[in-house]
């Protein structure tokens, strides 16, 4: 008789288990997303011309004092283990003078990412090979307003003493700096 009670009890338990199995618990559904980040490599300047002037007010001194500032804006997305470099070439520097540039990394708060390393006192020489202004740029942006971007500080002076005699007065002489952003490697 006790066995009968046990069996009935077990049947009751199985019934309750069966009910729980029938009640669906939760369900899921999968969904696939494709997400692409293409490489981006954009370089622009604020496009304003930079006016430099060499002069002196002291008798006996050589002419000096031409300084000006330009900005280069960059958007860059690189692949893994890739970096970029900004290089410059120049044409149109007046004879007997020398032009140098310091390049500072953007720091005005509108930038982000891996902005690389700047350089200082890089000589820009007519017809010379491209010189490197910024190295190890990764994925970054510099901001888009006129004073955002890498700060290019140009310094124009009389060149080597031996060339001083080749300097002639000129107005409106235009030198053109071409900036290029390249992949490394």
């Amino acid at each position: 008789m006790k066995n009968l009670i046990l069996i009935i009890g077990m049947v009751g338990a199985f019934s309750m288990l069966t009910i729980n199995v029938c009640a669906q618990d939760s369900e899921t559904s999968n969904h696939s997303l494709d997400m692409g980040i293409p490489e981006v490599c954009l370089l622009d300047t604020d496009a304003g011309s930079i006016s430099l002037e060499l002069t002196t007010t002291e008798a006996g001194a050589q002419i000096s004092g031409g300084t000006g500032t330009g900005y280069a804006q960059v958007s860059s997305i690189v692949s893994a283990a890739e970096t970029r470099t900004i290089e410059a070439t120049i044409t149109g520097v007046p004879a007997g003078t020398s032009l140098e540039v310091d390049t500072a990394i953007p720091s005005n708060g509108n930038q982000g990412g891996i902005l690389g390393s700047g350089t200082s006192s890089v000589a820009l020489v007519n017809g010379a090979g491209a010189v490197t202004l910024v190295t190890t740029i990764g994925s970054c942006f510099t901001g888009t307003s006129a004073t955002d971007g890498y700060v290019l500080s140009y310094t124009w002076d009389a060149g080597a003493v031996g060339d001083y005699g080749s300097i002639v007065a000129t107005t409106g002489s235009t030198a053109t700096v071409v900036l290029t952003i390249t992949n490394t490697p």
Partner: protein
Amino acid sequence: MLLQLLILLHLLNNFIMKKSGLIFIMLVGSLLLTTNAWTQDWTAGDNVTLTVQDFCLIETNYAPVALTLITSTAGAAAASTSNSDLFVKISSIVPGGTNREITARISSGSVPTGTALTLVSAPCTTTNSGGILGTPVATPITLSAIDQDLVIGIATCYTGTGYNDGYQMTYTWGPDSPSTNYGLIESNTYNIIVVFTITAHDGN
């Protein structure tokens, strides 16, 4: 009913043990008599058992979702991009006073470093739906490997089965804190799988 049966069997057991079979038979006889006395009407019938199982089903419209981070302006960060092609359809029956939630998590792959992928649900479309369809969580969730609520308070309802029936989901993908994390972004193609779950009702 089961309880009564068990008590009766217990009594039966005791009677047999005490060998008081006669008393037991009398007791059973009196019960039968009593039963007969109560059966006075002549209607006949049958027990009809109506069962509504609680259940839930979920499916998407399997819309392909492709997102691309890009910019065309020098100096600008890659802009956020959105996609609202995906609809989630459900059927749900719950016991009274209980609710379900739709949750989402990433089951395969991961969101590219330096970026964040968010997801938010619109209220269920009304054309082909009915019932208590719940309320979307207003703040977009940032998808991760852990389930987070998209729609809460779902009770007994259906959303319709058409391609554009159900809860419209909006993915938004963009740089995450670009001023500090932008350098982590790497160009590539990434595939991730998002799992939508309709939970067991909260009475479970």
